[in-house]
């Protein structure tokens, strides 16, 4: 898009949106937020980039193959945390065994699980957007 104002303002805003999304991701323990919201906000930042600078530019920043890998990786991180806790002798997705005491283990587990959720939501939202936006392109 050839709109100068939009280009400059998006340049200023996109990094702020991304940092904010990551803040939401990691502060889900204390206030409202968590992986689901963070993934959506982060993908909104990339969607803004794609709308303003063109879809091709956005696909160069985050290639679709990488997105597909990330989407599966998020689910794998989630499942993997469960598996690791199984290996450590706990129940599936019981994070208590991940660290020396219960609080630390739970905290670590929740952090990792939320990370997996965030990655999956982010990449699936972007996959969906790229599919819609790229349709009809030859």
């Amino acid at each position, binding site marked *: *898009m050839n709109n100068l104002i939009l280009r400059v303002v998006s340049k200023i805003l996109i990094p702020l*949106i991304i940092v904010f999304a990551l803040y939401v991701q990691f502060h889900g323990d204390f206030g409202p937020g968590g992986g689901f919201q963070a993934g959506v906000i982060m993908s909104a930042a990339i969607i*803004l980039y794609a709308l303003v600078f*063109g*879809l091709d530019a956005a696909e160069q920043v985050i290639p679709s193959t990488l997105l597909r890998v990330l989407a599966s990786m998020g689910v794998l991180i989630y499942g993997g945390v469960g598996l690791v806790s199984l290996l450590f002798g706990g129940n599936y997705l019981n994070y208590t065994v991940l660290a020396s005491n219960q609080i630390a283990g739970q905290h670590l587990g929740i952090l990792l699980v939320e990370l997996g959720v965030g990655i999956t939501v982010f990449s699936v939202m972007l996959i969906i957007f790229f599919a819609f936006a790229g349709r009809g392109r030859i």
Partner: protein
Amino acid sequence: MLSEGNLMFIAVSLAILVTMALALARALMGPTVYDRIAAANMFGTKTVLFIAVLSFLSGRMDLLDIALVYALINFIGVVAVLKLVDHGDFHSSGKEESKAAEVDQC
């Protein structure tokens, strides 16, 4: 839950509700589709203010994060509309002058 507290916050939240009602009326009446989009955008800004006031009314500062989200990403919808009007799709990068989508104006 909201506490009976500061009269001024209550007054302001009611004033914002009135503003929202008028913006909603504009969104319903149109007449052009751009009026509706403008009203929706204005509604978004008023939601930011409303949530900010609500956070003081209920004493929960966490709500400011939600207001911040709206302030940051509310205008993406408008950008999408411009892209649609200019190019007719989301994938052209802007160099070529593709045919614009005709938007019905009512």
